[in-house]
């Protein structure tokens, strides 16, 4: 089914791992070359007409065409080719560090997916099928599969959390711009620490999953939704509301993380079905999953308790 293009999203076709479109339009289309020609023609010829003899305007207009328009045309061409070169260079440099195609996969979301995912984060207990669906070896985009991780919700939730923290501090008259930057960088550093610890533990236990770094960033960023909910309840309903919301979002988030990561970590036993090293592995993998899940409430409490005094 074709989704209507929503404001703020580019309506790309729902392909799996949609790459960039082949014929990328220029940053600015070169439509201005025709109109200034007419403008300069209009500007120059009356002025020339006033001081010139009667036979002059014809030759004058053509000479002015040669002077004004080639310069403008050449400048326009040069500027757009410079912009193209700059764009290509930036793309090349960025694609050396991270593949932009993979990043685009994580932002291919739509409103329906966001709604369902938010409902799932707050109330995951009735969801039946947690398997990420594939389509000929590539995972489906978040638009077609609710279980796929995305980076849109974590990014938006992170920014909303920072704004909410500023608002909460302002309500308590403890606001200053430095505190906002400090809050933002603290939250960012905790995400980086968590992702690095996850990567390290997955590497040490040689767990062969297809969890990329972006997947881990996505799963680690989902806790910001819980944090926003907790802070809002704390602001609206006082300290009791804060602890109730903390308990609710912690349980929901722990359930969500365990069910999502169980599919990825615990069931990737393709190579050691020999039974040789299989005894210790599932236990350690279970420890990783449970430790990740148990870390979430701690960090939610740590990052929000100072906002709801």
């Amino acid at each position, binding site marked *: 089914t074709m989704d209507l293009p929503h404001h703020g999203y580019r309506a790309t076709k729902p392909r799996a791992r949609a790459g960039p479109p082949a014929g990328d339009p220029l940053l600015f289309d070169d439509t201005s070359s025709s109109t200034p020609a007419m403008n300069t023609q209009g500007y120059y010829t009356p002025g020339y007409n006033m001081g010139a003899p009667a036979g002059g305007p014809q030759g004058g207009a053509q000479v002015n065409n040669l002077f004004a328009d080639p310069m403008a045309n050449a400048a326009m061409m040069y500027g757009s080719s410079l912009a193209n070169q700059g764009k290509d260079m930036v793309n090349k440099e960025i694609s050396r560090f991270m593949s932009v195609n993979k990043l685009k996969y994580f932002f291919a979301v739509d409103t329906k997916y966001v709604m369902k995912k938010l409902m799932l984060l707050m109330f995951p207990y009735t969801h039946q099928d947690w398997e990420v669906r594939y389509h000929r070896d590539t995972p489906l985009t978040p638009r077609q599969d609710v279980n796929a991780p995305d980076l849109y919700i974590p990014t938006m939730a992170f920014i909303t959390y920072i704004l909410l923290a500023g608002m909460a501090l302002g309500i308590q008259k403890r606001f200053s711009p430095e505190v906002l930057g*400090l809050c933002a*960088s*603290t939250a*960012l*550093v*905790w995400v*980086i620490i968590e992702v690095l610890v996850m990567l390290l533990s997955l*590497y*040490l*236990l*040689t767990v062969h999953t297809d969890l990329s770094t972006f997947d881990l960033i996505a799963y680690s960023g989902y806790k910001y939704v819980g944090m926003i909910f907790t802070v809002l309840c704390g602001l609206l309903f006082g300290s009791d509301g804060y602890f109730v919301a903390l308990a609710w979002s912690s349980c929901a988030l722990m359930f969500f993380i365990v069910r999502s990561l169980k599919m990825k970590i615990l069931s990737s036993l393709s*190579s*050691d079905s020999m039974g*040789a*090293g299989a005894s210790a*592995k599932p236990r350690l993998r279970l420890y990783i999953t449970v430790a990740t899940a148990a870390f979430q409430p701690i960090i939610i409490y*740590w990052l929000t308790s100072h906002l709801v005094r």
Partner: protein
Amino acid sequence: MAFTLYSLIQTAILCTNAVAVLHEERFLSKIGWGVDQGIGGFGDDPGIKAQILNLIRSVRTVMRVPLIIVNSACIVLLLLFG
């Protein structure tokens, strides 16, 4: 605990330095973590100890030159700006 990005960079530099300083023959072989004691089982998944030794050795190899540059820059900056 309020973290700034600067403290994150500091932590990263200190941790990488700590791993790169572990000397191969003066220290790691003495406690049984040398290069020859790591690679145990072939074909099967290596254990945790083999992975850790591999990690230490690769950090030492890869990060030696960048660490020299970054440490020198840090020393100069700390001398100039305190």
